[in-house]
């Protein structure tokens, strides 16, 4: 029954870009996708005639709920000037655009198309926090959200199980947050490109300007322990454990391996593609791991012939700080229970042996849910090509990276492995 999944023919990533992620009053999802698309065109070494794009696969979670707009495919082909090329929207909650990426890879690998655009977008910030909380919760199991579980609530519940088993505490998660901010500071597209130290200074400055008592904290950990600046969202998770509400768009250009050199001097190969599904909380045998991630990893590792030790850098789905820790275990980077130690020991920092979320992650780069999956792949593509600017990892022979995307409460997970060959 179990055979090694494989692609019919090679597929390469030869272009990609994202809009800035953030909360934009005067811009909508079309503006953001346009930003990403134009920059993507510039990113293709040897250029792309947009009219040569044969199909668009778009990831979007819930424009229906957030914007009262469905059927985004033709809205986008019109925006890009590529009507009557086909377009499809794929939905897998926060993994929507990883599914679009997968569909795009499959379309090229099957021989159906040579040149495919994959995109993702979400516009969330014009709704209230309560509405967004409700909208996101719809991606959990019906029994969960009807019981009152929110997204942060589900990951907080998982956190209590993890802490109980591995004798850790919410304070141990500060290391994840500090690292995310440290990395995002070097990412001009990030929603929160600021370190915790800078935030502390900003807070003090603001209070001073208003003539209020100037707050002070001994260090970053003291700041993150202060409920005035870091209140509970869903105990034991606090504000700085959570990814924000964001708007953003991202797109990637996939082409058949045999024509890749025509587009790019350094094409990056899609060598591993995995996806799995997972249980709701009450059916999970073990709350401290995601079975969907394990399935995705199994498939992607088998397809690529690579293993966790071969992955030099990774973007993992840190919708909440605890999630990043668990993913680094489920993907096999660290043993169960060791992920929390690894991040506290600095192993996953940009300069560490296994850099995780060099983009700043969902926490600081931002999390426009439908754009996240492709944006994670984009970061790996940039790093592999040495185009990540100030946040380029200091690894001399960087060839293999992976992007892990999670949808809902772990109901859908994907792993994509990219490799620079030659």
């Amino acid at each position, binding site marked *: 029954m179990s055979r090694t999944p494989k692609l019919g023919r090679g597929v390469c990533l030869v272009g990609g870009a994202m809009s800035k992620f953030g909360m934009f009053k005067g811009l909508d999802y079309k503006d953001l996708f346009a930003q990403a698309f134009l920059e993507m065109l510039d990113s293709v070494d040897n250029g792309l005639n947009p009219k040569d794009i044969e199909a668009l696969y778009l990831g979007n979670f819930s424009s229906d709920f957030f914007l009262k707009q469905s059927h985004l495919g033709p809205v986008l082909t019109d925006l890009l000037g590529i009507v009557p090329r086909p377009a499809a929207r794929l939905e897998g909650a926060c993994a929507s655009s990883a599914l679009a990426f997968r569909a795009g890879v499959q379309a090229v690998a099957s021989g159906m198309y040579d040149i495919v655009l994959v995109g993702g977008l979400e516009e969330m910030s014009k709704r209230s926090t309560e509405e967004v909380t409700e909208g996101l919760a719809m991606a959990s199991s019906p029994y969960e959200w009807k019981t009152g579980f929110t997204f942060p609530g589900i990951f907080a*519940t998982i956190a209590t199980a993890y802490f109980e088993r591995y004798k850790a505490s919410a304070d141990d998660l500060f290391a994840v947050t500090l690292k995310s901010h440290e990395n995002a500071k070097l990412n001009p597209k990030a929603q929160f490109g600021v370190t915790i130290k800078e935030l502390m200074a900003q807070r003090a400055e603001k209070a001073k300007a208003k003539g209020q008592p100037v707050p002070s904290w001994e260090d970053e950990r003291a700041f993150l322990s202060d409920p005035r600046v870091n209140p509970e969202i869903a105990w034991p998770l606090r504000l700085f454990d959570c990814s924000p509400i964001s708007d953003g768009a991202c797109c990637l250009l996939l082409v058949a391996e045999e024509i890749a050199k025509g587009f790019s001097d350094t094409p990056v190969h899609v060598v591993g593609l995995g996806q799995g599904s997972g249980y709701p*909380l009450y059916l999970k045998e073990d*709350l401290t791991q995601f079975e969907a991630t394990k399935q995705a990893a199994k498939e992607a590792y088998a397809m690529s012939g690579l293993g966790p030790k071969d992955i030099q850098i990774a973007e993992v789905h840190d919708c909440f700080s605890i999630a990043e820790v668990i993913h680094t275990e489920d993907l096999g980077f660290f043993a169960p229970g060791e992920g929390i130690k690894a991040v506290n020991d600095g192993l996953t920092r940009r300069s560490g042996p296994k850099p995780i979320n060099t983009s700043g992650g969902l926490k600081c780069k931002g999390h426009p849910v439908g754009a996240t999956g492709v944006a994670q792949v984009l970061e790996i593509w940039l790093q592999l090509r040495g185009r990540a600017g100030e946040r380029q990892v200091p690894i001399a022979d960087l060839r293999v990276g992976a992007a892990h995307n999670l949808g809902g409460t772990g109901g859908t997970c994907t792993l994509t492995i990219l490799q620079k060959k030659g």
Partner: protein
Amino acid sequence: MEMSFNELSYWMGMEEAKLMGVKCKECGAIYLPPRPFCVQCYKDALEWKEFQGDGKLIAFTSIFVVPKSMAEQGYGRDNPYIVGVVELNEGVRIVGRIEGVDTKRPETIKIGMPLKAGFPKAMEAGVSKAYLAFRPA
């Protein structure tokens, strides 16, 4: 109306203060909530099974930023509520609210504590609805 082995029946059971799941007559597998067929033996031979509602706390959270529907019931930053995963004595797990504990001091709640199911009612969009809430046994 005949009750189907589905989500609708699960919530309707609560209105009668019952925690309803199903049992496979063929292989004996039990399921909570109910499901339309057995995913162990794939036989379509289910019967209703009422769960007693006694169990222990596996994991939980106290929710301070609430969705709109809970805000309308008066919950929010100053009045958080607790939800969790409970393992029943019959061996299955279910999600439910956890009441009768200090919602603002969740650190005082212990994983593993014995719980008992109850079915209080709350107004939701103008309609009174029963929900599953566990309390310390």
